[in-house]
């Protein structure tokens, strides 16, 4: 094999891969008369937490807490977050800015503790949050982190700060599935964790098929590998906003209360973060953040925020 052939092979591989990936990104042919929908990037561009952060409060006379001392010495809040959850925490690779409800919550908390919204995100997926909080690698986890009693044995939860429901996406032509009960015995694409637990609790006979990302779940339905997708309805809204061959059903089910994960060994910090949540909910910052992020996808007026400490484990 000469160098020339080798280079040709490499170039060929790159071209084939590029073509296939391009095919993966485009909608399959055969959706005639589809109305032009905004591209994902356009939707992402409308989502911003800056307005809420600009007018956010700064904490006064906070109790003594070792975690807050650590954050102040470092000068920034280190949090576990996600890069690819549209509406909650989406990274714009061009600017390096992360926008969404969760990302905004991190900015607000940093401003409350430090006086300026300086944050640093650690994205380690959802497997490692408890371990990273336990060994103080991160200060908080703000990552669509569902409060459960099992997790509350290892970490402390402030909140809930958001109440998510599971939504259902099916093929645009599908009329057999209209509500959660219709998922019985069907193959349902979802992600491991809270989304899968909500599905199994609601419809024990559904067969979950687990994928890594929302985009893969949607592709599985488009290609007939699964009959439906269930994930929290805000992220499904973002994922289906640009597609014409699948639809998001109006029906939702289940409840996923999202909380802010905290180290278990610092009860004073939990008091501070719960105080922060109550403050931003009372002064309208929470509603402003919701309107600038998730509200851009849901297009409804902001709901009443969930009551702090209202779920088991918080």
């Amino acid at each position, binding site marked *: *094999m000469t160098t020339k*052939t*080798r280079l*040709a*092979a*490499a170039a*060929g*591989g790159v071209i*084939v*891969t590029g073509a*296939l*990936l391009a*095919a*993966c990104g485009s909608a*399959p042919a055969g959706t005639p008369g589809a109305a032009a929908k905004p591209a994902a990037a356009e939707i992402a561009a409308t989502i911003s937490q800056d307005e809420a952060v600009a007018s956010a409060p700064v904490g006064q006379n906070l109790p003594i807490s070792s975690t807050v001392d650590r954050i102040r010495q470092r000068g920034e809040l280190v949090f576990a977050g996600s890069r690819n959850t549209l509406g909650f925490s989406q990274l714009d690779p061009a600017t390096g800015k992360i926008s969404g409800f969760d990302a905004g919550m991190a900015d607000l908390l940093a401003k409350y503790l430090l006086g300026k919204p300086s944050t640093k995100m650690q994205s380690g997926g*959802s*497997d*490692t949050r*408890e*371990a990273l909080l336990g060994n103080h690698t991160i200060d908080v986890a703000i990552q669509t982190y569902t409060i*459960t009693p*099992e*997790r509350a*044995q*290892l*970490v402390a939860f402030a909140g809930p700060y958001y109440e998510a429901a599971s939504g259902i996406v099916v093929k645009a032509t599908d009329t057999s599935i209209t509500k959660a009960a219709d998922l019985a015995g069907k193959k349902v*694409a979802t992600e*491991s*964790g*809270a989304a*899968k*637990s909500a599905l199994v609790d609601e419809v024990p006979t559904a067969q979950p*098929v*687990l*994928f*890594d990302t929302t985009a*893969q779940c949607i*592709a*599985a339905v488009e*290609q*007939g*590998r699964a009959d439906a997708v269930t994930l929290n309805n805000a992220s499904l809204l973002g994922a289906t906003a640009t597609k014409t061959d699948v639809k998001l059903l109006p029906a939702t089910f289940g409840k996923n209360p999202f909380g802010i994960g905290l180290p278990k060994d610092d009860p004073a910090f939990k008091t501070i973060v719960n105080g922060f949540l109550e403050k931003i909910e009372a002064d309208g910052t929470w509603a402003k953040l919701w309107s600038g992020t998730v509200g851009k996808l849901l297009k409804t007026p902001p709901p009443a925020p969930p009551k702090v400490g209202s779920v088991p484990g918080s």
Partner: protein
Amino acid sequence: MSVLFAHLGELLTGLLTTLELAVLSFPLALVAGTVLGVCRVSPIGPLQSAAGFYVHCLRNSPLLLILVMVVFGLPYLGATIPLFGSVVLGLGLYFGAYVCETVRSGIAGVPIGQIEAARALGLTFSGVLRQVVLPQAFRSMVQPLGTIFINVSLASALGAAVGVQELTGSARQFNLDYAQPVPSFIAAVVGYLLITLTAGQLTGVVERKVRVRR
């Protein structure tokens, strides 16, 4: 830890899936790799180039990319294979490239004099391969093939990313349900060690049995 023992069943199911993936993918890789290896040493130019092209493309791509292409790319070409089959196919195609190079080195290990002698006896190209070269080549390839089998069983963990719940996927799910990161990953490590150590031992036994003494 007690919660881990209560849910050991789910992890064992995952371990079984990992084993199934490895045991089905490896023969596929073996067949594909042997065919490719023979193509690369054949006297036919186009066959050599085609096999070389394939091996270079596959060996220089991450496995995850290959799996995503098989799972999400093939349907655009009109072939939708079930997820489990897709992962087996992806692993087989990918490790076929590695087996091909092992086959080539095994063939290179057969003394040239033997090939010349076989030719002198009037054996055809396929006769030389089937009766003289490949039997000896495979006997010298046991260790590297064992290593490839271990790699296949570890690489099958990527199945979790495309909807096949194997050992890694089960461990992650268990961790997300019960927030037990350390026990769940230790359990997964023990599962993989069981597979890889057993494979290593078996490889050693087979290798000692079929070794070519020169």
